């Protein structure tokens, strides 16, 4: 573990802005510190954890505004008290990365973290409706707001989501939330090959039955390939759709339903948090691809894989230090190195290098938002 040195711990937006403005060197922006993804960053730690608490919650308007350092668990608990939730099902990286600490809502936004429901409910960026942040000069800025339909000016909300603290330090985030669902069920198929599984998931996702999760585990918990399709909603509706989906997927073989909501919940938590690859020392990559391309690309990884998002998301486990991009060659999509040693992350670009004209735009934006280059410098570098 790197020596942390002194930590800046502002407790208000103004203090945070002053800390950035008066910084004389690079800053390492930290929420809960649970997601050390990207190039290792040298610099003084600027913790956002001191900016915590719910600013506004209107269940009847499906909106919540929270300070960026608020623990994710606290946000989820507040929403649950009104039977609502964040639609995008953010992954908890502690399981895969073996990290400690408390994930913050600002960290979720900074990394645009989503889970299995992303295919139906969108990513974190799709639920995010407003941000306040401090740019690299210490200026306090806002974009978006607290209403879910807003096209007033440029959408910097999307730009900040997933920018991992390199464009600004988030101080406040606003979301459109959704009602939590009454129950859930899972339609399961045993024994499918990867190609068939992706085909079955395409059939399910192309049905009118609102599948909110579609994953395939080639190894399966009991060594048998397992394809899982999740349905959520009111009990009667879930029962109806489960029945229809069972019928629809019969041609694929041994189809059955798992209707215990607790077991279904646990199974999808495992997919969300990449449980199959937890607790090993191998590198883990995350590939976003066109779903029907997935089996071919997965085969090229040479490692162990499983699929989420109907095939659109491949999780791949490969030996330490593997340059997976070199193995894959050209394909439509991108690969992120999520788990690897600091040494590997320094050697292999964790984020997909972009074509030159796009990289020039990204670099141009970074210089405008952080002209001194002090916010998480190099974290997303190619």
């Amino acid at each position: 573990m790197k020596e942390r040195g002194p930590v800046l711990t502002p407790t208000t937006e103004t203090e945070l802005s002053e800390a950035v403005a008066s910084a004389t060197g690079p800053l390492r922006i930290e929420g809960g510190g649970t997601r050390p993804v990207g190039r290792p960053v040298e610099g003084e730690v600027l913790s956002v954890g001191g900016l915590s608490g719910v600013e506004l919650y209107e269940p009847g308007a499906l909106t919540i505004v929270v300070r960026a350092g608020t623990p994710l668990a606290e946000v989820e608990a507040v929403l649950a008290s009104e039977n609502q939730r964040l639609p995008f099902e953010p992954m908890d990286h502690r399981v895969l990365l073996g990290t400690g600490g408390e994930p913050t809502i600002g960290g979720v936004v900074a990394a645009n973290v989503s889970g299995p429901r992303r295919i139906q409910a969108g990513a974190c960026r799709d639920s995010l409706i407003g941000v306040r942040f401090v740019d690299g000069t210490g200026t306090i800025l806002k974009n978006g707001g607290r209403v879910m339909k807003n096209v007033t000016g440029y959408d910097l909300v999307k730009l900040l989501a997933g920018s991992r603290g390199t464009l600004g330090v988030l101080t406040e985030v606003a979301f459109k939330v959704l009602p939590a669902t009454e129950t859930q069920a899972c339609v399961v198929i045993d024994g499918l090959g990867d190609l068939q599984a992706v085909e079955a998931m395409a059939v399910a996702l192309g049905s009118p039955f609102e599948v909110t999760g579609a994953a395939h585990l080639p190894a399966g918990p009991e060594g048998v390939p397992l394809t899982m399709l999740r349905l959520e909603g009111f009990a009667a509706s879930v029962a109806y759709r489960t029945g229809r989906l069972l019928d629809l997927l019969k041609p694929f073989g041994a189809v059955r339903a798992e209707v215990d909501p607790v077991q279904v919940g646990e199974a999808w938590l495992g997919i969300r948090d990449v449980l199959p690859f937890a607790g090993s020392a191998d590198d883990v990559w995350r590939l976003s691809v066109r779903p029907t391309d997935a089996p071919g690309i997965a085969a090229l990884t040479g490692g162990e894989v499983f699929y989420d998002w109907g095939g659109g998301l491949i999780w791949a486990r490969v030996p330490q230090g593997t340059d997976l991009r070199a193995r894959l060659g050209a394909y439509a999509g991108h690969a992120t190195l999520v788990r690897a040693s600091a040494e590997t992350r320094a050697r292999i670009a964790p984020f997909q290098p972009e074509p030159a004209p796009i990289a020039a735009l990204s670099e141009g934006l970074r210089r405008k938002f952080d002209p001194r280059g002090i916010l998480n410098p190099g974290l997303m570098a190619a």
Partner: protein
Amino acid sequence: MEMPVPDSEVLSRKPRIVARLQEVLPASAVIHDEAETRAYECDALTAYKCPPLAVVLPSSTEEVAAVLKVCHAEGVPVVPRGSGTSLAGGALPTADSVIVGVSRLNRVLETDYDNRIIRVQSGRTNLSVTGAVEQEDFFYAPDPSSQLACAIAGNIAMNSGGAHCLKYGVTTNNLLGVTMVTMEGEILEIGGAHLDAPGYDLLGVICGSEGQLGIVTEATLRILRKPEGARPVLMGFDSNEVAGACVSDIIKAGVLPVAIEFMDRPCIEATEAFAKAGYPMCEALLIVEVEGSPAEIDEQLGVILQIARRHNPVELREAQSEDEAKRIWLGRKSAFGAMGQINDYMCLDGTIPVSALPLVLRRIGEMSKDYGLDVANVFHAGDGNMHPLILFDANKPGDLEKCEAFGADILKLCVEVGGCLTGEHGVGIEKRDLMTAQFEPQDLEIQMKVKDVFDPEWLLNPAKVFPLAASASRREGAFAA
């Protein structure tokens, strides 16, 4: 509404600029005759008109790139145009600008049901995207009222919404990738059939940038399987407050209707006179639509009707047939046309927190008396996107100005209660000078810096979105170096 003084030096070079455009495009794709350019003098914000220097109608991404290279070299402002249905003046030209219309870029390039995407050229109309996939029971979700005419290019520029975005989101939530040409004529591929950005979410900032960052020529869009069915209910209430409370209770109950539309008394009266949908005469009317199988619809409507009854509705009407469902939607869908029959009108689209609905409607009523202009309210109640229609007489001197001042006051009120100036129409020229009501100078500055990165010389749609005073130094070339 003020527009920048056209650059006389650019105007004097018209023959050369036209000649260079003709070198890179077929003759039929360059319009420069003054009588013909007049067809492009405005969009759906017809109060403002100005014929452009020339209009080009390229047929490929490469032609768009060639045109932009010429315009960049000549230092000519470019105004991108989809179908010209903007209500905000997004496609309004200046006399020294070249309009780049994408109407000839209207092909479907790929439909892929397994991956639930369609790739189209950006001049294709919104409704014809759904038209291309509905034989397989799929659809493209964003449904702006102008969907029969409006182009995907304009939808992307304005991040258009529609009546069903409570459930399906707006354009940005359904857009996966674009081919975009920069002002310098470089062709960029951003996103595609896969999800999420590898680095910064450039697609997210391009969508809704009102044609100021580049010209989108192709788009990959998410398509969805149609639900098994949909059914609306109509509810009448004797006050706006009660209708607002009912909306809030429905949402809190965990039901997610696909649409919740709200109409106030002036709007009900006008649409009844025009469309005769048989609406009850009351203070506030809600149309709530849910989707699913017949049994699922029954279950959801059961919950909704139970909540509605608690609010003592003056009317509850559940559609028992396809025909009755159509009648319930008839008045809402004819609301704008009905208003147009009575009067000239200006349509606003500020968004407010749903909880502020009663207060905002009461204040609009008071302002209506002060200004002496009638106003009718149609409202996407689930997401807080208002559509006040201010009625005025374009032939009466001073009425337009009065209407604009009234509109500005309503939009400032939207911002005051925690909302925004525009929910789905865009800023264009219409709300450009109100931006300071919503944003601090530094919030506008950072947005303009984004444009500096994509279009350093500020040639793309330069007189839109930002207050003219705020963008003056950039438009006049101080930042060009």
